[in-house]
């Protein structure tokens, strides 16, 4: 933890914090007689929740009555004392981690100012008679900033979950707890974890949002200037440049354009992860037919044979599924263009009786399986731009979409002997099984249903 000077007023433990801070009685009325300012100290102390207020040095500034009740302490006993002195370690449980974990959480709140929800902790409490009682707590530590922006206090809010935890432990040891109570304790513990995960997810999403905005705006501007000024230079030089000069300018211009495309695709890829999915029945036969229409121009003047069997109807997001097939079929057409007779097959089989697999096979350039690990990464390419154009985002899109549908993708290929791309979808996503297929299409299991 980084050492940071604390405001001097908070350095010393206050023997009676807050004493003398309560406003004189007359000041309770602000402006008009109608607006009565409540006595916040009285309000705080009688809150039903379990609250402890700590200074940045972890001395106890105040506690709610409910907190005192739950910890079997009295206000006068603990105010002004260090938290770990007021609530010491249980000597008969030397391995207990409650104190260390609480210290770590409070330290992180002091350092970052960000609230911290702790996992459920065992932190035993000393009874007035000196013996310790096993207690389990769920705690949230929140920073309160002063006028100078520094953390002035920490609100330590706890819930006593001892009963839930003991119930759970009993049921784990084989003494079945009544079903409902067991479930309640499970739900309680899981809820803590979900809340924590949600908070992290939200902050990650916000970061991603800022990141893609930055790409969209900040990265595109200088790029536009490179392209723009190269173009202006070309106009300016007019006939005053030779073929080498023109070549340099063209290269600058083309590279800038390519980077523009890369930025756009990266942005589209980052949006894809966040886009909401609308799951509808997708007729793959129709989808494949539509996608093939968009590839007609690329197939013109070539010999391309399509072998397509009837495909199952699946449940998915139509736009995303279209993108998957546009990529896979587009790749098959692109990478088979050096074949005098290109053959593209689209087939399906059942895998392990649970998943449906759809595959797209071509007899094109293929690739060496040693590099297959790179195939689905963003901006990863297995062919030179001069051989086959592309940005290396298409298959990354395919994988992300199929993953979001609960499926997976993989490929098999040999250099110059073509490639086969497989995508599996879990069977709940499959609405209508494909009709029986010619034997050649069966997978290892050999059965379609």
């Amino acid at each position, binding site marked *: 933890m980084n050492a940071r000077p604390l405001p001097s007023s908070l350095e010393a433990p206050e023997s009676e914090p807050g004493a003398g801070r309560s406003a004189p009685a007359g000041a309770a009325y602000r402006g008009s007689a109608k607006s009565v300012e409540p006595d916040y100290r009285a309000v705080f102390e009688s809150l039903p929740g379990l609250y402890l207020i700590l200074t940045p040095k972890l001395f106890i500034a105040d506690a709610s009555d409910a907190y005192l009740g739950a910890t079997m302490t009295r206000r006068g006993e603990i105010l002004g004392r260090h938290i770990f002195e007021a609530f010491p370690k249980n000597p008969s449980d030397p391995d207990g981690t409650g104190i260390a974990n609480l210290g770590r959480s409070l330290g992180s709140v002091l350092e970052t100012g960000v609230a911290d929800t702790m996992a459920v902790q065992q932190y035993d409490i000393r009874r007035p008679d000196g013996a310790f009682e096993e207690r389990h707590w769920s705690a949230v530590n929140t920073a309160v900033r002063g006028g100078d922006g520094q953390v002035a206090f920490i609100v330590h809010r706890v819930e006593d979950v001892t009963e839930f935890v003991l119930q759970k432990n009993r049921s784990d040891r084989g003494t079945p707890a009544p079903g409902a109570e067991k479930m309640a304790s499970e739900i309680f513990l899981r809820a803590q974890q979900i809340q924590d995960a949600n908070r992290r997810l939200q902050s990650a999403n916000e970061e991603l949002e800022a990141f893609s905005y930055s790409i969209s705006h900040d990265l595109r501007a200088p790029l536009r200037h490179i392209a723009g000024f190269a173009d202006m230079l070309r106009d300016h030089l007019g006939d005053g440049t030779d073929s080498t000069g023109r070549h340099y300018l063209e290269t600058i211009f083309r590279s800038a*354009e390519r980077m523009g495309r890369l930025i756009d695709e990266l942005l589209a890829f980052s949006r894809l992860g966040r886009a909401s999915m609308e799951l509808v029945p997708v007729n793959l036969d129709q989808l494949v037919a539509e996608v093939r229409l968009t590839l007609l121009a690329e197939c013109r003047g070539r010999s391309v044979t399509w072998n397509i069997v009837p495909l199952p109807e699946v449940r998915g997001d139509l736009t995303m599924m279209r993108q998957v097939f546009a990529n896979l079929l587009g790749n098959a057409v692109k990478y088979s263009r050096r074949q005098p007779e290109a053959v593209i097959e689209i087939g399906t089989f059942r895998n392990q009786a649970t998943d449906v697999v759809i595959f797209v096979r071509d007899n094109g350039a293929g690739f060496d399986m040693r590099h297959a690990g790179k195939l689905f990464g963003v901006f990863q390419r297995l062919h030179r731009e001069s051989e086959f154009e592309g940005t290396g985002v298409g298959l990354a899109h395919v994988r992300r979409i199929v993953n979001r549908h609960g499926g997976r993708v993989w490929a098999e290929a040999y250099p110059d002997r073509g490639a086969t791309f497989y995508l599996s979808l879990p069977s709940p996503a499959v609405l209508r099984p494909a009709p029986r297929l010619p034997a050649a299409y069966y997978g290892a299991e050999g059965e379609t249903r």
Partner: protein
Amino acid sequence: MPAPIKIILLAEDSPQDVEMTITALAAHHLVNEVVVVNDGQEALDFLYRKGKFENRPPGLPVVILLDLKMPKVDGIEVLRVIKSDPALKTIPVVMLTSSNEEHDILRSYLHGTNAYVVKPVGFRQFVEAVKQLGVFWTVHNEPPPV
């Protein structure tokens, strides 16, 4: 009475973008009518004849080309001020920006922009876009009566 001067107000913080826009407007003989300001505060100063524009001759631009992301006061804020002032709200405002984020487009329209143009990467496309904007708003468009 002399014909009123047709001013285009260009609010843009990037000098490169300013140069490109002026070059594009110059290619179409619209350059004498462009006033360039470098942030949103200056744009508002120009419109309200404050600060360094205190002594400029009266009159309002026929169109305002507004960058979205500018220091101090950003484009959206300028747009909001213009569209909530009865004296300024009839001036056509074109957001001219790098961002094609849906969120930026939507909030620009919600604040009353008349058009939203994403600056194209290619200069020729950029020239074409600026030319169309300039010609449309200064030549073809009939400005609101004063």
